[in-house]
């Protein structure tokens, strides 16, 4: 990449239902981040905000987010997609040389404001799918789970194992809104079916929250932190909208997004070269689909991965030590949270969830039904 860009610091706030106005949540979060890094809003050259109109119930979602995020009388723009795209766009602005320091903030009050499932309904083709009412977030995800099970001979229990692992990991994450330190596949199985084979505990919890990150170029990043997390590569790709035309057991767009990021980052063997991966899975079954597409595990290996603990904290390829989307899923901002969790890992700030010696991390974000749109960033402790 034509410039070295790093993440200086991250901040997160998450709850299952906020009791303060969203604008106040943003101010507290961003101000806290500025104070932690020792800068003011005047040190930020460009602001990139990230939220969704339908979720916040505001036409032009960022209209009331600008001032709380410190962007009053500043250079500001807004990405309306998963937070990973906001992080990528912020990186592009820095790469151009037009900016040296940037702030990216994603937020959602999806739990208290408006149900994420309904927000997803409005993503349906309004002339047909929305009218029929058969497809929705849960029904399409269930189809996706079944597709994987049928193709690879995997049982629901494997997904429940993944969910249980994520809930255990989430117990080590101070930001998670749902967790269970001793969760088992049995616990997940015992939770209500939301849409067979999806259980309540294998689906993401509604989460209100926000995530803010300061990015900077080379020298500036080193001035602001002694542990910059360097962005080595990034990419994204999109599949067809029509779920019936995709092989739901795999993810072409996740694979292509990964390939693009790996190419820039010089990664030829992700399973070996990635030390920790934060994948955006809204449902437990999406984790193997996406991880396999990213080359982290063999195709169809969910059972083996769960059985041998390969994705566990101490496994050969730790996935979502944060608990991932099942511990907390901030609608829209989630991809940013995955980046933030990689930052915690690479800075050695992940506490009990620390993957020891983590030097290279992968963050992933998704959008659309059955992860139609996927984005990947590769991060590293090494500059240049």
């Amino acid at each position: 990449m034509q410039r070295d860009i790093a993440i200086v610091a991250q901040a997160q706030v998450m709850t299952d239902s906020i009791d303060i106005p969203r604008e106040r949540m943003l101010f507290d979060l961003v101000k806290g981040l500025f104070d932690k890094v020792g800068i003011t809003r005047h040190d930020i050259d460009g602001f990139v905000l990230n939220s969704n109109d339908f979720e916040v119930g505001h036409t032009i979602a960022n209209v009331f987010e600008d001032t709380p995020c410190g962007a009053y009388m500043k250079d500001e723009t807004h990405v309306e997609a998963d937070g990973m795209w906001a992080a990528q766009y912020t990186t592009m602005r820095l790469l151009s040389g037009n900016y040296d320091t940037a702030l990216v903030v994603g937020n959602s009050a999806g739990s208290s404001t408006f149900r994420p499932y309904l927000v997803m309904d409005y993503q349906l083709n309004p002339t047909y799918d929305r009218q029929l009412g058969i497809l929705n977030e849960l029904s399409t995800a269930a189809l996706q789970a079944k597709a994987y099970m049928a193709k690879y001979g995997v049982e629901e229990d494997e997904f429940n194992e993944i969910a249980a692992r994520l809930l255990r990991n989430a117990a080590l994450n101070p930001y998670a809104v749902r967790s269970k330190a001793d969760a088992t596949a049995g616990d997940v199985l015992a939770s209500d079916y939301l849409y067979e084979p999806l259980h309540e505990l294998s689906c993401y919890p509604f989460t209100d929250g926000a995530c803010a990150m300061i990015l900077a170029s080379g020298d500036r990043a080193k001035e602001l932190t002694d542990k910059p997390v360097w962005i080595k590569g990034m990419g994204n790709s999109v599949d067809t909208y029509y779920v019936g035309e995709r092989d739901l057991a795999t993810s072409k767009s996740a694979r292509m997004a990964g390939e693009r990021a790996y190419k820039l980052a010089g990664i030829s063997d992700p399973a070996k070269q990635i030390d920790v991966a934060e994948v955006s899975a809204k449902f437990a079954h999406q984790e193997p689909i996406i991880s396999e597409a990213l080359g982290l595990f063999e195709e169809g290996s969910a059972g083996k991965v769960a059985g041998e603990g390969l994705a566990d904290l101490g496994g050969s390829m730790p996935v979502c030590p944060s608990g991932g989307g099942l511990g907390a899923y901030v609608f829209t901002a989630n991809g940013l949270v995955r980046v933030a969790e990689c930052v915690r890992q690479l800075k050695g700030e992940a506490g009990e969830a620390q993957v020891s010696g983590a030097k290279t991390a992968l963050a992933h974000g998704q959008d659309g039904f059955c992860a139609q749109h996927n984005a990947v960033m590769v991060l590293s402790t090494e500059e240049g």
Partner: protein
Amino acid sequence: MRNVGIIGVGYTPVFVSKRKDVNIPEMISEAVDAAFRNTKLTPDDIDAITFGNMQTFEGVNMPHLWAADHMRALDKPYMRIATGGTTGMSTLHSAYYHVASGLHDVVMAITWEKQSEGDSQVGLSGIVMPEAMVMVQHGMDLFGGKGMGAMGGGSTGAAAYQAMSYLHHSGADPEHIDKMAALERSNAALNPYAHLRKKTSVADIQATPFISWPLRFGHTCPTSDGATVAIVASEEMVEKLADSVAWINGVGCATSDPATGNFIEGQITDPAEQEPAKMASAKAYAMAGIKDPSKEIDMAELYNGFAHQSLMWLEKLGLCKQGEAHKMLDAGALNIDGELPTNASGGVFSTNAIGASAMNRPAEAALQIMRKIEGGHQIPKKIKNAVSHGWGGMFQYVTVTVLGDEPRHG
């Protein structure tokens, strides 16, 4: 910094009140196809796509995902931008940065709106939705005008106050707004891609009633269905692929607080001041190496939802001193054959597919520089530098793109 140029533009065949013959992805794909035709490129030539509109106007969330196939976006990097009225230009800026970052070489920016399929009132009132309800709960009279409030200016809203303030500070008369309106509508009559294309005289404008004095019915913009697509490329790819180019030499954007509708937390911004316009244009001019825009800029495409705004933006963007714009209008300098042709396209005032409106401005400026204007509004003089401008939010967002016939660094 990497040089990036616009190598082509595509419009839907028309911008009209209601396209009943196509759905959203079909409509947008018309502009995508037009861009391919005009540049002789194919989808394989496109490395990445950016996409923008104001989604609450159609009631479809994340429409870029539904439209992905029609956009020829499959298997490509794809990104959605949404910044209210400035969306069109923010989406272009995103495409610009995709290339300026060094990561991509040829990027398509897609912008559009199909307001006829939604409810514009709902879309617009959604901007102030919870805040307005709080005010009403506390006794604000929404329509009767009694009490202390934040809603005023009738159906033109704060634009009426902005117009009045502009007239006061510039010394212009209300008749100058009529004159600017007639000029732009007459320009639009020459533009096959404009919405309101009836040749209009000052008398025609003055025959329309005042809604909120000094603003008349004839000073307001339409709502249009339509799409505008631009293709940008790096310098190397411009040489390989394009027979003409308009270089993006300067970009800038700035945000103030919501000038209206943030009543519950105090409104300090004067909607007539438009401080962000000064900030954004200063940034864009500096980047483009323009030291005196009033001398070096040859044409302007300004985002004017209301006719007085053309005159106001000329001053706020430094194209003339305060109080000079209406004199330039009187002298004929703003005409297509004048020294500073302003909104030769007819502006947003004549065509407003809101997600595309801020893209139409740089698109038109690019076509003018490349001398590829279809229709009768090609500016006769040579355009070396052009400024295009976008505006939106609650009177708070401004984006500026400065285009030139030569790239910035030799």
